[in-house]
């Protein structure tokens, strides 16, 4: 057990950084650095001011930047995002914190119809440097209204960037990139990862969009996993290693843009692909990757692609139901093993 845990942690080491921090601290650091560097950045959302955020995701920021730049809002996501878009058009660089990713739906029209289109339809005359921050996924049985992971809805839309970091290192690096980018970006953290520890360099660095990370090299099967599922993938890989199955775990880090090259290279090496996603299979991230690989690397595949996803039901509250619906390490092991049959 201890060996599994340490190799899982090792799998998540990006650098030789000795400094360690939590996922939530990483986000605060990135925002603090960027808000100090750029006076046009400001932050809006429910409870993100003196309270420091529902997940402590803005702790300390209000103390430094005050009411002007850390603005608590009413429960009005549509207006939060709408004001964010307007402010971005006028030259500010807002962060809108939706808190629970589920509630982005209240503002979807603004995000999809307005934010994602304006640069294009204005023929490049306007930019929308807006960052939407939110926490997706289930933790402690958050239930049907607080557990969604439908980031693929936004991956579907041209004009939006979608980041789904799995580690503290990537939270800080990707959030900095998002804040420096002039394109509208969804920065989607996972609420079950907020207390996860990992290497967190103190020095200045960014992580580019569209660059996946190979969390564990392998040669028998490629396993792509998103956000919280990365650690489940690594656990499953550890178990399969003992059966002589070498799994290559890839973390895309951003789904829009998606690092196709890394995925295709891995599949040509292994010949087998499984995709692990806490979201549903239908029209999701896993469907997109499966389609891409089928289109561009059909000859490389030695087995059908496997999608390991949430089963198609709402997020039941009861732990026994939830544990069944969301991919477990056992299910991942079984599904990945099945790609080597036949």
């Amino acid at each position, binding site marked *: 057990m201890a060996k599994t845990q340490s190799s899982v942690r090792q799998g998540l080491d990006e650098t030789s950084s000795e400094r360690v921090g939590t996922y939530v601290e990483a986000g605060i650091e990135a925002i603090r650095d960027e808000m100090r560097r750029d006076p046009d950045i400001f932050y809006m959302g429910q409870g993100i001011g003196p309270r420091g955020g529902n997940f402590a995701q803005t702790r300390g920021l209000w103390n430094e930047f005050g009411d002007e730049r850390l603005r608590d809002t009413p429960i009005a996501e549509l207006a939060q995002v709408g004001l964010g878009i307007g402010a971005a058009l006028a030259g500010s660089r*807002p962060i809108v914190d939706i808190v629970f990713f589920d509630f982005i739906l209240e503002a979807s029209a603004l995000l999809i119809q307005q934010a994602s289109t304006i640069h*294009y339809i204005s023929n490049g005359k306007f930019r929308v440097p807006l960052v939407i921050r939110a926490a997706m996924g289930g933790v402690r049985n958050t239930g049907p209204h607080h557990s969604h992971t439908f980031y693929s809805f936004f991956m579907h839309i041209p004009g939006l960037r979608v980041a789904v970091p799995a580690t503290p290192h990537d939270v800080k690096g990707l959030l900095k990139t998002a804040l420096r980018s002039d394109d509208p970006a969804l920065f989607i953290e996972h609420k079950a990862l907020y207390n996860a520890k990992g290497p967190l360099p103190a020095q200045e660095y960014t992580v580019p969009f569209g660059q996946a990370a190979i969390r564990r090299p392998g040669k028998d099967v490629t396993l792509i996993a998103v956000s919280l599922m990365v650690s489940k993938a690594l656990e499953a890989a550890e178990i399969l290693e003992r059966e002589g199955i070498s799994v290559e775990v890839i973390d895309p880090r951003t789904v829009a843009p998606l690092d196709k090259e890394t995925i295709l290279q891995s599949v040509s090496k292994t010949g087998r692909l499984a995709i692990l996603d806490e979201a549903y299979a239908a029209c999701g991230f896993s469907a997109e990757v499966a389609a891409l690989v089928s289109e561009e690397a059909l000859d490389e595949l030695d087995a059908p692609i496997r999608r390991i996803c949430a089963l198609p039901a709402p997020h039941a509250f009861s732990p026994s139901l939830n544990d069944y619906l969301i991919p477990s390490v056992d299910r991942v092991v079984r599904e990945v093993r099945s790609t080597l049959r036949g």
Partner: protein
Amino acid sequence: MNVSKELVLSLYRAMAEIREFELKAREIFRSGRMPGFIHLYVGEEAIAAGVIACLQKEDYVTSSHRGHGHALAKGIPAREVMAELMGAVGGCCGGRGGSMHLYEPAVGFLGTNGVVPPGIPIAAGAALSAKLRKTGQVAVSFFGDGAVNNGAFHEALNMAAVWELPVIFVCENNLYATETPFKAATKNTSVASRAAAYQMPGIEVDGNDVLAIYEKTGQAVQRARRGEGPTLMECLTYRWFGHHEGDPGTSYRSREEVEMWKQRDPVRRLREQALASGWAEPGDFERIDEEVRSLIEDAAQFALASPQPKAATALDQVFCD
């Protein structure tokens, strides 16, 4: 209010330009040469002219699907608006937006919009940015009666009031949202009275009286620039034509009602008032009419001759980076 000849003639010119532009667009549309759909502003010119005359070039405006008047009054050249309606490269958006998606940062024009309510929070956001940057800029949101029962209206007005944003919400109440009468869809038909719910000033004004609009807007702009927050203005008006070109506008409105409102033509009304009060002479108006006719004729020629963008550019500009 001090009415100078200069003010009268500039307001007249702004309205005449919109009137002439809309009639020319209608003509081109009916000839079958214009793609898409247009929603004409004829009859409502006093609102765009009267409100925008109070703004500086760097102040912000958001508009709706019925926005040619706002775009022209704010300073997008007539040629570029007409070419945009044609989907041509000479358009202000290179043909990518069309009538309902006109954008021009050089004059603070944050877009006409195919969806009406979003312009309301977007204008509030621009005002927020101005407040943060301490520039003294204000923002104006133009929307119709159809938007005021939408959640975006409520959320944006409340946030603008809470944060005392320098934004003016201008409702152009022309009594119909597409073909739905305002009174059939609304319990409280006084839009201006809703301002009380947000503790902001609510002003009702004759939407066909450009001088009254200019005066009331001026006061709202001063309040906003002084940091006293937002205002809601309700301008009572009427569109002469249908919701969009192709809709005669008479299946849900009586001809008598349409004729009654045509008698309140804001353009003719200003001219008659100016002549009666001695603010200007007939020759002044004739000269402006001729200049406007020439300007719009030039815009039409330009637009009709402007080429379509090349298909190879269709995937450009989806992202900045």
